[in-house]
């Protein structure tokens, strides 16, 4: 199972604990998390299901290529990390 972790910056707004989930793509893995925590979805994805402009997702330390459909493949032992992209001051 892939591990999904969220930036601590999200914890200020709502609980976002790490989770071990089944999923073959980034989008699939996140969907499993959001199914159990629906309120979290809108903090990470926009209305069309793409990554928010100022949210970044890395898999094993590398940024995902597909920020719109979240189709990057993930394996059973991969780590997905969701955090805020730097912006503003």
């Amino acid at each position: 199972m892939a591990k999904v972790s969220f930036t601590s910056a999200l914890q200020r707004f709502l609980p976002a604990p790490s989770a071990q989930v089944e999923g073959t793509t980034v989008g699939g893995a996140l969907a499993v998390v959001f199914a159990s925590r629906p309120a979290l979805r809108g903090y990470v994805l926009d209305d069309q299901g793409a990554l928010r402009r100022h949210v970044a997702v890395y898999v094993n330390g590398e940024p995902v290529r597909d920020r719109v459909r979240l189709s990057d493949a993930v394996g059973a032992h991969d780590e997905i990390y969701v955090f805020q992209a730097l912006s503003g001051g």
Partner: protein
Amino acid sequence: MTDRLHVGTRKGLFELARVDGAWEIIDVQFLGDPVSAVLADGDGSVWAALDLGHFGAKLWHRDHAGAWRELAVPEFPPKPEDSGDDPHPWSLGKIWVLEPGGAPGRLWAGTMPGGLFRSDDGGASWSLNETLWRMPERRHWAGVAGGEQPGINSVLVDPRDPSDIRIGVSTAGVWASTDAGGSWRLINRGMYAEYMPPEQRDNPIVQDVHRLARCAVHPEIVWCQHHNGVFRSEDAGTTWHEVTAIRPSKFGFAVAAHPSDPNTAWFVPAVKDERRIPVDGKVVVARTRDGGRSFDVLTRGLPQRHAYDLVWRHGLAVDESGERLAFGSTSGGLWTSEDGGQSWAMSEARLPPIAVVRFAPA
């Protein structure tokens, strides 16, 4: 009079109450987070929209017992495959204005990128007004200066008929619906945009309506602070006449209409366009009491030397009595008046930049 004032800032929501003849901050929520819109009800409930830099627009509600909880935000439907040339995103940018809808549980939310949303359950769920959103003309709506997205900044619901609605858009003029949003028309005539090419100057859809305000007792009277000046309508936003007597300048963002006197309104003028500072570094409120034929420039209690406070479109409010006013600035200055603007008291608080001030109804 109203004894509660809500101030939405770049760094949180502040609630003030009238205590021993002065306004005191009695509560702070969302400290550190930008508040983009606020609405209060007479029973103590409050709606606050947040514009989180990384994590999107959010909406919170405080019930009459004082408990805050997060509500669903308005959400755009899936973008159709054939809408590829739509210049605006199908995703909520921010909630820019919240207004009561005149029916139990009904709220309207004006947003960037230009979607108008309606709730009939006190904000628990929202639906996009698809008719307005799918009008071909929307593709000609333009982004607000400093942003890429157009925004609905004003929603005026006729107190006599909740199905009769006007909205003001930066930048797309004034739109009307007389069937609760079932159909819409671009209605404004008489505004001009002097920064546009001559062929476009009088085009209704290019008009940058900074803010609309309506007289509650005489809803056909609507005031507009426009990018190019002040305008007044006597037919609920269809025909506009420029109010040239405004001084010390005709540029500004905010306007407040007297709730019962159709001839009284307040503005906070500034130096136009890119500079956006008070004229001569003096914070003043311009008030007309004769329908715009003349103005009093009100200064008592307001800083008159080296003051560079700008007041945004939602930064000026009047209560139901027409006597009590408040305005807040981009420098975090907050002023209140108990006598129709004749004199002002400055809050001692050094607040974050203020986006919106709003009285709770009595």
